[in-house]
């Protein structure tokens, strides 16, 4: 059954309810994976999911229940069953604190009737040729390239019909010397792979392996550190994910009482913007679960640019419409892209050139919150820590470091911030790929211990 028909027939089966939201998602994904310089698992998969959210009026208020299924829909009886199950779940859940009227239609998408947009293994056409060349090279290559296109149709009993096509693509290249003594990483996010030059990415990884010709051991301690965009992205995503309104209002968050507080004199702005060029995300909200900051009742509400930090000052936290009303503030959706701007025009190379002595990182790994009150996180450096002296990389550090550092301090203590560029957050890539970040110089990054892992 076509997605549009699934939406209409489900809503038709739900007219007796107080309200109903139907989300149909159809995804296709093409992937290439390689290790030890040979392809390991490649594939092309398609999948779909129908989610029905039933709103039921009862004593004490409106309740919501959510049911979803990946089964292929061949019979309208399946949709009736989903509506009944969602209705039952709503009745059992009882009144929802986030109950709000469903949003009325204000714009329509001309593409509503269009079918799903699909990717295919063909998206890797020229990329695959380049990759073959890279795999034939002298280094040991490991990596993953994926391209996913998800088409979402959202229909509500209030008459809203929206469709959105979200392409998500990324490539990660991990090159190691034949003796496995050095490891380097490069990565990029993309919408269609047309802009990915895998040979150039491999050359950059190769240049970093060259830096490893000279190795040096360094003790744990506090180092001036150049965080590259990929590392900054992971830290800023973590920061953004902790910027939820309700916990702050209730005093159980590091952001309690922090809105309006200046973090830095640098004019840094951390923003999620659905219209950011090349990083576009859904212009309307879709969700299949309510939690702090987001509500199933808000499906279809237009998203907007949210400035989490504005010119150095903590500015906005997420609120669903119901929470915004409860706390006397405005609806603030979470973001699916993130940009940090307001730095200089300096490139990474220029910032290396202006470094007396410091560490240049490649990326971070296994980042976890240690203390939610201070937003202290721990994690590891990964695939290349380089010593910079007199404006040049002079050696590769022959191990990694475990760091402990507060996410807030990345902005509070930033000494220099360079030009913003598109990057790939390595740690959170499975969930979040759309980021543009600068290099950030932190004067005393806390390298808590030496990790012998390479």
């Amino acid at each position, binding site marked *: 059954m076509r997605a549009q028909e699934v939406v209409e027939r489900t809503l038709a089966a739900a007219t007796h309810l107080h309200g109903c939201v139907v989300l149909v998602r159809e995804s296709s994904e093409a*992937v290439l994976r390689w*290790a*030890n310089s*040979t*392809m*390991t*698992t490649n*594939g092309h*998969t398609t*999948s779909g999911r129908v989610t029905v959210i039933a709103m039921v009026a009862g004593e004490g208020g409106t*309740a*919501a*229940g959510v*049911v*979803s*299924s*990946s089964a*292929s829909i*061949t019979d309208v009886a399946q949709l009736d069953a989903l509506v009944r*199950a*969602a209705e*039952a*779940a709503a009745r*059992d*859940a009882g009144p*929802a*604190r986030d109950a709000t009227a469903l949003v009325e239609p204000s714009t329509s998408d001309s593409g509503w009737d269009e079918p799903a947009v699909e990717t295919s293994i063909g998206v890797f056409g020229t990329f695959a040729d380049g990759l073959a060349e890279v795999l034939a090279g002298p280094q040991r290559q490991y990596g*993953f390239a994926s391209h996913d296109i998800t088409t979402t149709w959202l229909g509500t009993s209030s008459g809203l019909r929206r469709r959105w096509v979200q392409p998500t693509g990324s490539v990660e290249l991990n090159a*190691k010397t034949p003796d496995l003594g050095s490891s380097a*990483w490069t990565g990029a996010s993309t919408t269609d792979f047309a802009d990915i030059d895998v040979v150039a990415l491999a050359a950059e990884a190769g240049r970093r392996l060259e830096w490893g010709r000279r190795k040096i051991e360094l003790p744990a301690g506090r180092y001036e550190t150049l965080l590259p965009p990929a590392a900054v992205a992971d830290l800023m995503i973590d920061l953004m994910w902790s910027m939820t309104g309700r916990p702050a209002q209730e*005093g*159980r*968050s590091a952001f*309690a009482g922090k809105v309006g507080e200046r973090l830095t004199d640098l004019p840094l702005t951390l923003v999620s913007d659905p219209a950011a060029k090349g990083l576009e995300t859904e212009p309307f909200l879709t969700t*299949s*679960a*309510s*939690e702090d900051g987001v509500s*199933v009742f808000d499906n279809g509400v237009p998203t907007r640019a949210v400035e989490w930090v504005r010119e150095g000052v903590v500015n906005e936290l997420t609120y669903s419409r119901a929470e915004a009303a409860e706390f006397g503030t405005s609806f603030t959706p979470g973001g699916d892209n993130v940009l940090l701007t307001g730095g200089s025009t300096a490139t990474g190379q220029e910032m290396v050139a202006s470094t007396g002595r410091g560490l240049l990182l490649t990326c971070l*790994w*296994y980042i*976890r919150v*240690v*203390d939610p*009150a*201070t937003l*202290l996180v*721990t994690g*590891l450096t*990964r695939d290349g820590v380089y010593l910079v002296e007199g404006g040049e990389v002079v050696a590769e550090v022959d191990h990694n470091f*475990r760091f*402990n550092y507060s996410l807030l301090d990345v902005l509070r203590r930033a000494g220099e911030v360079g030009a913003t560029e598109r990057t790939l957050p390595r740690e959170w890539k*499975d969930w979040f790929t759309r980021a543009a970040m600068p290099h950030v110089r932190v004067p005393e990054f806390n390298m*808590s*211990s*030496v*990790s*012998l*892992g*390479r």
Partner: protein
Amino acid sequence: MASDRIDPGFRALPLEAMADAALGRARELGAQHADVRVEQIVSQEIELRDGTVTGVSDSTTLGLAVRVIVDGVWGFASHVELTPARAAATAERAVQVARTLAPVAKERVERADEPVHAGAVWVSKYRIDPFTVPTREKVELLTEWSQRLLAADGIDHVRAGVAQVRENKFYADLTGTSTIQQRVRIAPTFDATSVDRASGGFESMRTIAPPTGRGWEYLTGEGWDWDAELATVPELLAEKIKAPSVVAGAYDLVIDPTNLWLTIHESVGHATEYDRAIGYEAAYAGTSFATPDKLGTLRYGSEVMHVTGDRTVPHGLATVGFDDDGVATSEWDLVRAGVLVGYQLDRTFATRLGLERSNGCAYADSPHHVPIQRMANVSLRPDPVQDTSTDELIAGVERGIYVVGDRSWSIDMQRYNFQFTGQRFYSIENGKLAGQLRDVAYQATTTDFWGSMDAVGGPSTWVLHGAMNCGKAQPGQIAPVSHGCPSARFRGVNVLNTQEEAQ
């Protein structure tokens, strides 16, 4: 009869007909190996905040997968439509994938043999299928838990919830193996938060109950004493808030199973995955310091360290009758007397390691994913000779810390350097507990840490803990896994003060 317990909706699917269609087609097209997997995964999540439901969500994943080996090359395809015709077409696609990949596949697949298991039925050990319990009853129980906590002094906010999964797998292959299985798992959670508006601080404490391969009976007291824990968490949290901050330095640690399971998971479980050890996960999950050239010689830990892998322990989250290679599951040694002696394997890796049979670690988290080698239940054996209690372990410490419950965790790509926090830390002075401490994290290198283990508790201290959602591979797959362990004692472990680390 085990077969009577299999979900009737799953049994009613044309399983044998789909298998015959897919396997027949694959054989016709020249596949040397073919297997069909039909899966139905039903899950429900219920979440409450401050005694009110924030979400009830039910979800079902259904599909069939066909995997083939054609001239030594893998092919895989899946579909959501469960008919014999679609199964045959999916087999054709899988063969096509194998033939397409043949020119770029440098390696030819060889797999360890496995006896034929025809018509096998396996059901996990649970009493009450959570999906037979009315949702309203579940909501009422969680509401009651929340209210008990909210009524206690000093508790400002409470979260409670439960995740439940029922997984059905049908597997059939060209050798004649055919299995149908059902397993159930459940993860109840709650946490209580205390807010100090005056100081701007807050602190929380979570249940230390494990997720488990049990049914709804788990929430009504079978396998965990919820009433006792709900009654004590508020006072434990109050004590934690007033506790002194730890002085950083080296301490002897006695680690409770509710914390140690996660350290085992990260520093032994992942490190003894064969695919990691030979580089398959190098760009993502990482590799392992415990490489195959060190098998039989690597000193992993002290003499009292005996770690097993199994997919058989009752209520284990990785426990199953047959894996996704059609292999009957078992238990085996990974570390014996402190020395690395084994790996977790599937049929391909068993051959690579020179073994005749796989130990059954193939698993796919969905019908749309390829089975890969995933973690077995990896567990530390208790003292085989005497039933040493946790108190007795503590009695052997002059200045140390007793660690309870897991919280923050992080480990490097080779599984060497780790840092863990916990739910509660107790100061040990002259062999006795002397009140809680705050701001503790312990940090170590895997082999140093396990080398410093001078005693393990006896069987009475043993607890089976675990995780519902261990992640691995690209595209990402999640897997449930349990880890059993006794309390254990470690000498001279580096302890950090997390307030100082944040300075």
